[in-house]
């Protein structure tokens, strides 16, 4: 099927919107049901899958900037303008700076705007600060784990009954997951530290304990744990054989390692190469 053909079959112009592709497909499938005309359905289905792919390709442009809400009160706009550069600085330090820099900037902000004492701080400033922090914690590409922990604690976002949970339960779920992931990453570091100190057997034993631990029950947390562990091990020279063997056995990597490959293709290739060089064959 050529690149244009899928759009013709779906009867729409090329679009970056997956939603539009789905809508067009949904309309056509009602008259091309899979059980009625298998061949026509397969043509439609292939066009749908190709178009979703093509839409993905088209969707590279950056999102438009947020529209300014004209209805907001003057004082609100004023405070926001005052906080904005500081919040943006926090975002930058989370994405590119060190943990300590980000934490220091946060502390400085709390002092500068007198936000520490609930009794004396300006409620509107606090509210807009919270909005900004939520953006820093949820919408940018990277966060320092400690920064996130402090923020979640400070605003009580994951507490039962918090306004965030009522308005946006998905975000709260995401934050909870993020905190658990942070814990899992610490565990990865501990395992790798043990291996680095030359105590591979102890590292393997720790891995065995972790596999059954509550921390790694959640499928997403475990996914990240496995992926980071693999990346860590790929950087060792020589590769930790004993620990690798344990990881392969405990997580079933021989059976399925797609998540590792997808998470970091280069690291996975490097890791495989190093294992092969040492003659691993489990």
């Amino acid at each position, binding site marked *: 099927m050529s690149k244009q053909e899928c759009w013709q079959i779906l009867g729409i112009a090329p679009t970056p919107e997956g939603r539009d592709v789905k809508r067009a497909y949904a309309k056509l499938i009602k008259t091309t*049901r*899979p059980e009625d005309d298998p061949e026509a*359905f397969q043509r439609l289905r292939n066009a749908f899958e190709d178009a979703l792919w093509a839409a993905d390709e088209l969707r590279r442009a950056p999102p438009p900037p947020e529209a300014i809400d004209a209805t907001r009160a003057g004082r609100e706009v004023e405070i926001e303008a005052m906080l904005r550069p500081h919040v943006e600085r926090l975002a930058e330090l989370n994405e590119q700076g060190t943990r300590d820099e980000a934490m220091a900037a946060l502390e400085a902000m709390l002092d500068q705007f007198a936000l520490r004492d609930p009794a004396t701080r300006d409620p509107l400033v606090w509210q807009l600060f919270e909005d900004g922090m939520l953006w820093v914690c949820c919408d940018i590409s990277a966060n320092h784990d400690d920064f996130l922990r402090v923020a979640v604690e400070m605003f009580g976002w994951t507490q039962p009954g918090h306004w965030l949970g009522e308005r946006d339960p998905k975000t709260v*779920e995401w934050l909870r997951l993020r905190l658990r992931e942070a814990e899992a990453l610490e565990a990865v570091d501990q395992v790798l530290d043990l291996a680095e100190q030359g105590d591979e057997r102890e590292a393997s034993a720790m891995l065995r304990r972790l596999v059954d631990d*509550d921390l790694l029950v*959640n499928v997403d947390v475990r996914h990240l744990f496995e992926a980071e562990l693999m990346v860590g091990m790929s950087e060792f020279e020589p590769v930790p054989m004993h620990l690798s063997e344990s990881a392969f056995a405990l997580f*079933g990597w021989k059976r399925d390692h797609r*998540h590792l490959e997808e998470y970091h293709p280069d690291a996975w290739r490097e890791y495989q190469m190093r294992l092969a060089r040492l003659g691993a064959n489990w």
Partner: protein
Amino acid sequence: MIIGIDLGTTNSLVAVWRDGQPVMIPNALGHMLTPSVVGLDDNGEVLVGLAARERLITHPQLTTSVFKRYMGSDRQTHLGSQSFRPEELSALVLKSLKADAERFLGEPVTEAVITVPAYFSDAQRKATKIAGQLAGLTVERLVNEPTAAALAYGLHQSEPESRFLVFDLGGGTFDISILELFDGVMEVRASAGDNFLGGEDFTELLIDGFVEEVGKHKGLGDKQASPALYQALRKQAEQAKRALTGSDGAAMEVQYQGETLRWDITDADFQKRVEPLLKRLREPIERALRDARLKAIDLDQIVLAGGATRKSVVRKLVAKLFGRMPAMNLNPDEVVARGAAVMAGLKARDVALNEIVMTDVCPYTLGVEVSEQVSPGRFQPGFFLPIIERNSVVPVSREQTVNTVVDNQTALHVNIFQGESRLVKDNIFLGEITIPVPPRPAGQVSVTIRFTYDVNGLLEAEMTVDETGQKHRLVIEENPGVLTQVQIEEKLAALAKLKIHPRELLPNATLLARADRLYQQMLGEERQWVAQEAARFQALLEGQDEAVIEPARAELKAFLDQIEGESWL
């Protein structure tokens, strides 16, 4: 009218699409769940359902259960002097459900949608279809169980777009499906499962625990040695399993050589024992998520199906695995049958469902065995060449070309497999075909193999010799797990000879079977009461006066309930 049937390992249900919604159909006892248990009574008449289940303990040689696990095999089950294949036993359950539906609808029923575990193989699906045929039902469609559950669930979704996961832990099988719903399209993104993991395994664990903890030093060894004792233990284990759902503990008790053996299990102990089973739930979940390229956090909802999801250990684990509480708004026992009814409505083109289309996937990879060159000129057989990759949307048709590897070979032997392993020895063999090819130097004859997998999950293979254009179709006959047309005719004739216990008399038979079972389980005074009451009721039955029998039946039921607590399903 097409009916929807959930043919389960432990219980079966039937439902119908009526007035724009699924409606559950009760059996002769007024229950929605019919135990998937078949037996012969003392007159050689077939008993199905609760009556048969009660007789598992008192008449283990004449009664059988859990036969769904053997579908697709040629295993014989002996009931008295007769023997049955798994599809015949299933057909008897289907017949009973068909009779219930006919009674409920007031018209003959000849067509059905039947659900199967998503991970059922080709042979298992064919066996299910044949079971329908043996029961006098044309199987209009086989639907994967989690897909059916999703249909029932998705019908009530008002969100324009959502993604959800169906966690289906039934009596004998475990299935995971990930679905996406948009604009009336219900799309299965991925399915994965384990055909040998279900509620029955939890029961077996408790039985093993009993034998290990209290039975062993009393000389109670092999559980197969005494079928009656095993069935009594089974019943106790079933009850304990239910009691362990949200309480602190339970007890199992059986009579053995004049002694009462008792084992107290705490919730914590149970949790520890089932750990290995719970661990097996993870792999299919991870695989389905990876196949669908989704993270758990991307899912909008977790839907539970299957009676085993009532267990608190299972619910707690699900909550932890996905970091959220599962949806609770549908009865997990009924959700698959309701979905089967929705499918029946779709099949019948009900106007209320005009705007709904469902697409499913083939949950496993299908391919052929090929030889690979291991050194120059040396080929080694045993490698798997995938033709249809798992989780392709069905219907799907794909082809691959293979070449000869030996000079002047005159025939090409094609073995077909299902599975995910690189080596065919680790995959499931489906069938084989040998086709003639023109003699040419190695590698010069090419054959195109086309696989077509239909909406019912049945596979067709077509081989084309490219040079001659000659086509061959595979008719899988080598598989002993699938009956041939001739055998089906024979089985139909054999089943027609069987006498089925009259449906309207089932409530009485069930009650008497229960009384017999209680008699066997009780001791002393209570035992005598049971005997007296049962004998009195039996005498009344002979008068055949329903006006007298009906109040007596209610009385006996109340009496038995008082002795052992309300009968559970």
